[in-house]
């Protein structure tokens, strides 16, 4: 009885969360007639790959994917490369005023990103960065840095101090210690924060819409939103659904691939258990 209730509850939650996704997936495989049919066809009896094929044939969709991937990967790498040393400094070396710095970082995370929009637009016009990958990479990195620093800092603080002392007694210098002892143990935290940054950069819309106007510079969310039909009055639901799926798939694969690393507690066994 208990089991039935439990599974019922799980099924409900899953259905509740995944129904919109399911709807998109089903739509992307439906024929146009079925999409527009009244009464609504929930589960199509015939399926087609046409929407996907159109996506890549009639539009430079590979191009969008590459744009998105490039921008996301570079911003993720940058925010980790800048954030990790900053976090380590705040956690271990504790410079003067580190509390103030932390408070400042926290303030930045509370600041709604959209308020930065006009300021950024101005800057990008001044620097002539429009239609340049940097116009997206810089803000994405900057917006994600505070979170990266906060998460990594608390992770570094949990790492046993003795390990670093042991490494120093063993003869590691600071750089060797960071790369050979701390980094391997930090991988779970790096992956977690990296994925958050990557997802943000991959999905970001407003900046990408405004700062990238050339067709060949667009990222997936913008491209998907701007899909048009044959006439102004036609909304190509099928193509939009297919674009959404194609746009989400890399994220899902990424998370599944790194899931183990995220969960794995590598520190187990470092100190007494």
């Amino acid at each position: 009885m208990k089991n039935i209730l439990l599974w019922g509850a799980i099924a409900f939650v899953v259905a509740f969360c995944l129904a919109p996704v399911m709807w998109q997936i089903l739509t992307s495989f439906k024929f146009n007639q079925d999409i527009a049919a009244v009464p609504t066809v929930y589960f199509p009896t015939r399926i087609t790959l046409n929407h996907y094929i159109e996506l890549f044939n009639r539009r430079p969709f590979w191009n969008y994917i590459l744009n998105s991937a490039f921008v996301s990967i570079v911003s993720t790498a940058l925010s980790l490369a800048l954030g990790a040393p900053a976090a380590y400094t705040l956690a271990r070396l504790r410079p003067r005023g580190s509390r103030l710095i932390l408070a400042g970082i926290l303030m930045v995370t509370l600041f709604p990103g959209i308020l930065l929009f006009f300021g950024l637009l101005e800057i990008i016009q001044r620097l002539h960065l429009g239609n340049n990958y940097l116009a997206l990479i810089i803000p994405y990195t900057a917006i994600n840095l505070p979170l990266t620093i906060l998460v990594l800092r608390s992770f570094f603080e949990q790492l046993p101090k003795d390990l670093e002392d042991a490494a120093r007694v063993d003869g590691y210098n600071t750089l060797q210690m960071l790369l050979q002892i701390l980094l391997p143990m930090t991988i779970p935290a790096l992956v977690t924060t990296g994925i958050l940054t990557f997802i943000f950069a991959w999905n970001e819309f407003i900046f990408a819409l405004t700062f990238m106007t050339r067709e060949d510079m667009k990222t997936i969310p913008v491209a998907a939103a701007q899909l048009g039909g044959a006439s102004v009055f036609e909304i190509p639901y099928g193509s939009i659904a297919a674009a959404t799926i194609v746009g989400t798939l890399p994220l899902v694969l990424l998370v599944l691939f790194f899931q183990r690393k995220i969960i794995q507690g590598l520190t187990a066994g470092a100190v007494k258990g």
Partner: protein
Amino acid sequence: MGEKKNYLIFPSPPTPYSLLPTPHSPLKIMAKLELKNINKTYNPKIIPVKDVSLTVDDHEFLTLLGPSGCGKSTTLRMIAGLEEPTHGRILLGNEDITFKRPGDRNMAMVFQSYALYPHMTVSENLASGLKLKKTPRIEIQQRITEVSQLLGLDDLLYRKPGQLSGGQRQRVAVGRALVRRAQVYLLDEPLSNLDALLRERVRADIKQIFAAQKVPVVYVTHDQTEAMTLSTKVAVLNNGYIQQLDPPEHIYNHPANLFVAGFVGSPQMNLLTLTCQEHDAILGNFRVKLPDLPTVPPQIVLGIRPEHVHIAQPDDPQTIQGRVYLVENLGMYNLVSVHVARSGSEPLSVRALLSPDQNWSDGEITLALPPQNIHWYDINSGDTLYSHSHS
């Protein structure tokens, strides 16, 4: 828990450790470790180490003993180079190493938490320090084999620390220090994370292993049993100062001051603050003869270990009577607490370790305080005023 079983036993080596060939090449320069007026000041209010001077020779096993916060760990960390002293100098051989980087000191350290690198196998953990020093591969392999045989790590070499029991991790930590063939070994409470049974076993092993190294060993602990059993020399620390620096027997028999008297020895020494009259100290309704002192102070502290107090025989010179109010059975002995008869104010309490076959009638007991076992301390400074020279 099959694991549990084998971690109760620190596997007995085929040969006693002391008979094994010492891993040092005969050419290696033995060195004396010297601390000169070491002080560590974090800020005017936090001064963990105020003024510590000591020397540790080859073959010597020095224990820094003291309660938590006495500065013993900070002292050890300064020897290792993990902290820089505010004042004072540290010498190894005749070389000043006060500001040398820890990696350049050729010292090896065993940490309380073991601090094994979790992402490396046991074998990689052992090799890490040697690889950094660019030791030839073959030699690294040789030394690892040697140490893993000594410590019984053969079967564990390709496991990661997470897959080891507490006792096994502790051995790997010791092994990681030993492969280094360091000039000085530093151990920071290496036994405190083991359970009581295993601790005794490992204690004995550690004594033999490090005695065979024939180099200075500095060991930090708050456990007096470890200090007494392991060391050739004990430094009792309190408040950032060395209270006494002597061989363990001497610390036990002739505590230099009240702190050492109260800290070393279990059960704790009886310490009674008494008023003096003429050449006697007034203990309840009894008088205890004072030793020859230049001047008789108004008050004095009498110290006597519970194991030296015994039931009075007719020929005992110094006896007191009291009422037994608590008997604690320690197995080998009974720890008997006695209220000494005293007219007026609250009774004084004296504890005695008596063997279980000794009896007394009706809760009334007459105890002897052998004069040669009594220590006298100044009530203000805590310094010893008189101690019998024979032990």
